[in-house]
């Protein structure tokens, strides 16, 4: 009798083998509280050492948006998008939600090696926790956005509520991105150094601060490429419900839903299929 037959005949199971997809999902769901608690404690700890603490969650993106407003407002001059401030704040806040999930997701495993090496739990809880913490950061920013919208547009609209399903889709999309990045950086650690540049490039090609129609002619290759970018679709869709002067295009819901669910499913399977390899002693 080989050692394997002997072990299996006594009901022992192989250690470190990756659980099946369904079992993995069930284990993840049952420990979802861990991801949420880690996210909220993590945010708290990140702000604990500065005097203004969690106010920075609102202050930083506001200062950022105001700076972009000043600089790009001057550069773009007459080519500024209509209704510039609401356009810009919507773009900057939602973009930072995506890019934050993307770049912090890239470090989900490699920056938490202490946790990974000392506790066993479904590792997908780490990128999930990153996206949860980014979502918690986004919520107070939405209040700032509401203040900007009200003070510039002088109205409150029911259509703002469409942001709720949109953020739900963004959550799914971001979670997918975070899982993909978390696994890739485990294999190619050097990629983590390039992440800031990738997110910068995404910033410039997602129409965060300019309107594609005003800068490029619709036939130009840039305009075509940018409209393929799902982040551009997300921002456009959000603006169509928040910012006056931007027509609603309901068909974009289909585009962003397809993107979100595809990225999520691909990301989950991609991440799970290397589960037993995270936490290598390197």
């Amino acid at each position, binding site marked *: *009798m*080989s*050692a*394997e037959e*002997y*072990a*299996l005949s*006594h*009901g*022992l*199971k*192989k*250690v*470190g083998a990756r659980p099946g997809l369904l079992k993995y999902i069930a284990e993840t769901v*049952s*420990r979802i*509280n*861990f991801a949420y*608690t*880690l996210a909220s*404690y*993590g945010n*708290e*700890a*990140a702000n*604990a*050492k500065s005097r203004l603490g969690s106010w920075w969650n609102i202050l930083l993106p506001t200062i950022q948006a105001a700076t972009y407003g000043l600089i790009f407002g001057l550069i773009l001059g007459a080519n500024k998008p209509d209704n510039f401030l609401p356009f810009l704040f919507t773009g900057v806040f939602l973009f930072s939600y995506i890019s934050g999930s993307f770049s912090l997701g890239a470090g989900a495993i490699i920056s938490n090696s*202490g*946790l*990974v*090496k*000392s*506790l*066993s*739990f479904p590792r997908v809880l780490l990128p999930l926790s990153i996206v949860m913490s980014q979502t918690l950061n986004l919520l107070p920013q939405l209040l700032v956005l509401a203040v900007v919208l009200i003070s510039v547009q002088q109205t409150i609209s029911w259509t703002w509520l469409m942001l709720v399903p949109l953020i739900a889709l963004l959550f799914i999309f971001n979670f997918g991105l975070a899982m993909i990045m978390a696994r890739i950086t485990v294999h190619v650690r050097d990629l983590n150094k390039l992440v800031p540049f990738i997110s910068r490039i995404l910033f410039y090609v997602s129409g965060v601060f300019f309107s594609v129609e005003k800068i490029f002619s619709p036939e130009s290759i840039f305009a075509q490429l940018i409209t393929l970018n799902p982040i551009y679709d997300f921002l456009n869709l959000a603006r169509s419900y928040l910012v006056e002067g931007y027509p609603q295009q309901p068909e974009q819901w289909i585009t962003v839903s397809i993107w979100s669910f595809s990225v999520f499913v691909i990301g989950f399977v991609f991440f799970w299929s290397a589960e*037993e*390899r995270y*936490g*290598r*002693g*390197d």
Partner: protein
Amino acid sequence: MAVATKVTQETRVPVVVIDNAEITYKVFASGRRATRGNSGGGLLFKKLKLQEVHAVKGVSFTVYEGESIGIIGSNGSGKSSLMSALAGLTPLTGGAIYANARPSLLGVGGILLPNLSGEKNILLGGLAMGFNKKEIAAKVDDITSFAGLQDFVGLPMRTYSQGMSARLRFSIAASKDHEILIIDEALAVGDQEFRNRSEARMREMRENAGTVFLVSHSMKSIIDTCTRVIWIEKGELRMDGDPKKITAAYNKFVGSTTVD
């Protein structure tokens, strides 16, 4: 194949089977001494190459119900690598490990979240071990007093001494009845009073049908808590058997005459 060599073993119930386990680390380094020879080549041609470190070289043994195993060996002998593989945290490069439950590893270092208070680390650790919020909240006080950290539980864990954080981490892990618990030198930094308390807790776990692996350089702890000792040297199994006999041989090997 170290299994079933004796007829008597057939009647015992195995809980862990380690079958020809091998672990090789790949390290990106030149492997040359900085102080020897020419380290030239310049910035672009440092001649870094993928070096292999063979930490565990084909170790096999079987652990039966009711045993608690002491693991001894010099620093760098591969004990910790093997235990980390047993816990499923380090992948094996060859062979296989089978167990009747998922083993939990309690190692040195690796504070959970240094900027969070001890209490929040207790809650997080509990949730990660699979307790729900209510269960772990009910255990916080017990865990704190077991660790003897009532006065410090509100402070961030980065302010803890090594011994304090080791105590807290052991107490978190010990709050659950593990079927298989691996303790990797985690108690070495604790003081004597805490060591006695934790050794009592380990014996209690063993009585509750749990299996304990204890990696330690303290032969006294090993003799006090283990029923069998495995000595690993340079990635290979050197000796396996009665604690007193094996620790005596090991002490002779390292040239020490003291027991502790």
